[in-house]
C-alpha cells in the first residue's frame, strides 16, 4: 500500500492526542496530580490540538472535503463512519474534563467522571481507527488480531511520552508515571514484534491462481499488463518495499521508538531539574520518530489482493 503521509500523520497525531487524554484521565482518577493551570492548559492544548490537527488533515486529502459531514451517516456498517462519530463525541467529555482541570481547578466528582468517560471514549476512537484497517479482508496482513491492540498500545506510548514531557517541564512529575510510560512503551513494542513475527510467518490467503481461477492450468503469470503505464490501483496498492529495507527499518523503528524512550523514561524517574527535561525530550523525540516509522512500515508492508492481478504471486 502506498504510505500516504496524510494518513500516517492523521493516525499518529490523533493517536498520540487520544493517548494523552487516557493518561490525563488516569492521573485525575488516581488523584496523582493536583490540577495546575499551566500543566492543564499545556496538556489539553497539545492533546486536543493533535487530535484536531489529525482529524482536519484527514479531511483535507478528500476529493470533496466540503461533504465530509456525510461521513458520519453510515455508522451501521462503516468503521470510518464510526470513528468519525466517536471522535466527535469524545470532544464533549474532553472539554468538560479540561474545564474542570483548568477553570475550576477540580478533579473531583463530575470532573473525574468526565475524565473517565474521556479516557474510555479516547480508547474507543483509537480502536475504531484500527478497525478501519483491520476490517479490510483484502489486506490479510492488516486483519491480524494484534492490529487493533497495537494501535491502542502506540496511542498510549506516544500519549504517555507527551504527558511525561509536559509534566517534566511544567511539573510536577511523579517518578512512577515516567516508569509506567516506559512500561507501556515496552509492552507496545513487544506486541509489535509479535505482530511482525506473525505476518512474516503467515500462510498466504489468496494467490494469482485463485484470483484468476486459472490455477488448474498451472502456475499463473502476468504476460501483458492492461497498459504500458501505471494506473490508480497500481499506484495506490502496488507499493513494494524490499525485504532488506524492511529488516533495517524495523530495527531502526524499534531502536528509536522502543529502546531509547524506555531507557529515557526509566532514567527520568530518577532525576530532576534540567536533566529530567532532557531525558523526557529525548524519550519524546525517539517515540515520535519511532511511531511515525512504525506506522509508515504498517502501510508499506501491506500487500493488497488486487495486486494478484498485476503480477503478485500471493497475498
Amino acid at each position, binding site marked *: 500500500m502506498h504510505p500516504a503521509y496524510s494518513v500516517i500523520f492523521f493516525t499518529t497525531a490523533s493517536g498520540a492526542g487520544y493517548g494523552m487524554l487516557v493518561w490525563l484521565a488516569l492521573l485525575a482518577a488516581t488523584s496523582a496530580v493536583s490540577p495546575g493551570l499551566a500543566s492543564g492548559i499545556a496538556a489539553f492544548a497539545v492533546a486536543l490540538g493533535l487530535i484536531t490537527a489529525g482529524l482536519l488533515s484527514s479531511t483535507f486529502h478528500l476529493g*470533496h472535503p466540503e461533504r465530509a459531514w*456525510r461521513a458520519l451517516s453510515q455508522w451501521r456498517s462503516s468503521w470510518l463512519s464510526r470513528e468519525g462519530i466517536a471522535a466527535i463525541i469524545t470532544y464533549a467529555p474532553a472539554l468538560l474534563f479540561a474545564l474542570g482541570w483548568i477553570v475550576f481547578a477540580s478533579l473531583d466528582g463530575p470532573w473525574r467522571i468526565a475524565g473517565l468517560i474521556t479516557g474510555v471514549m479516547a480508547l474507543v476512537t483509537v480502536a475504531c481507527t484500527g478497525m478501519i484497517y483491520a476490517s479490510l*479482508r483484502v489486506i490479510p496482513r492488516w486483519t491480524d488480531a494484534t492490529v487493533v491492540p497495537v494501535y491502542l498500545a502506540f496511542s498510549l506510548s506516544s500519549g504517555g511520552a507527551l504527558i511525561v514531557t509536559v509534566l517534566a517541564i511544567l511539573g510536577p512529575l511523579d517518578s512512577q508515571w515516567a516508569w509506567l510510560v516506559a512500561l507501556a512503551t515496552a509492552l507496545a513494542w513487544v506486541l509489535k514484534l509479535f505482530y511482525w513475527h506473525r505476518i512474516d510467518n503467515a500462510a498466504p*490467503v489468496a494467490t494469482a491462481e485463485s484470483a484468476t*481461477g*486459472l490455477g488448474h492450468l498451472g502456475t499463473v503469470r502476468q504476460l501483458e499488463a492492461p497498459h504500458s503505464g501505471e494506473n490508480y490501483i497500481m499506484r495506490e496498492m502496488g507499493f513494494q518495499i524490499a525485504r532488506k529495507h524492511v529488516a533495517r527499518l524495523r530495527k531502526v523503528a524499534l531502536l528509536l521508538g522502543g529502546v531509547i524512550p524506555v531507557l529515557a523514561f526509566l532514567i527520568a524517574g530518577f532525576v530532576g531539574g534540567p536533566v529530567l527535561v532532557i531525558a523526557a525530550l529525548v524519550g519524546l523525540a525517539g517515540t515520535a520518530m519511532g511511531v511515525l516509522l512504525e506506522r509508515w512500515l504498517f502501510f508499506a508492508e501491506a500487500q493488497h*489482493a488486487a495486486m494478484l492481478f498485476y503480477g503478485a504471486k500471493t497475498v
Partner: protein
Amino acid sequence: MTSLPQQTGGPQLGLVIDLDICVGCHACAVNCKEWNTSGHSAPLTDDEPYGADPLGVWFNRIHTYEAGDGADGQTVHFPRSCLHCEEPACVTVCPTGASYKREADGIVLVNADSCIGCKLCSWACPYGAREYDHSDGVMKKCTLCIDRIENQNLPEIERVPACVSTCPASARHFGDLGDPASEVSQLVRERGGYDLMPEMGMKPVNKYLPPRARPESHAPSPTPTSTATREPGGTGSPFLDWVDRTLSR
C-alpha cells in the same frame, strides 16, 4: 469448479466473460471508455494522454496471463471489471453511503453527489474495480451501463452494456445471474463458470468461463532441421518428419 449464483430471490444483473474465446483485442475496454465520456460517470479522466506519464480512469482493463509451464502453457486474455458482488465490502466500508448495491437488480454503483473521495472502497475491493477520478474528486467504477440497459431512447438491441455489444468474438454475455433459468445462468452451468478469489467472501455475481480443455498433444517437440542432430528413429528427412507430425495431430 462450477459456481452457481446464490438464490437471493431478486435479480442479480451481471456479466459472464468467456476466457476461452476472448482474444485480448481490448475493444470492450475502449468502448466502455468511449461510452463513459458522456452519461452517468462522465467524463473519465485522461491525464497527459500523449505525455510522459499518462494516467486515466478505466472501468474495464484487459490483462493477459500465461497459465502453465513450457509446452503446456496457455495464453489467457483476461478482462477485469467490477464483479457487482452479492456481499461487496466496497459498499459496507463507505462512510457516506455513496457506494450502494441496488435492490432491484443488484448493480453496485457510486452516487457521485455524495461521494467524498476517501478511497476506502477502492482499498476494500479485491478486484481493483474502483478507481479515483482526481479531476472530479469521486470514485468511479463499472455501472453495468445503467444508462444503456434501461434507456428507452436506444433501440432494444443496444440496451446491453457497451462492452457486451462491442465484443467481436462474443466473449461477453449480460443477463440475470440470480435467475437460474436465464441464458447466462445456463451458460455458467454448462461451462463451469466460476468466481474470482472466492476466499475473499465477496460472492461476485460476474462469472468467468474457463478456457476449454485442450486435446492432449501427441506430437513430439519440433526437431531441428540439421541432420547432425536428427532424432534417433526419425525418417532422416525433415519434410517427412513434418508430414509425420502433421498427420499425427
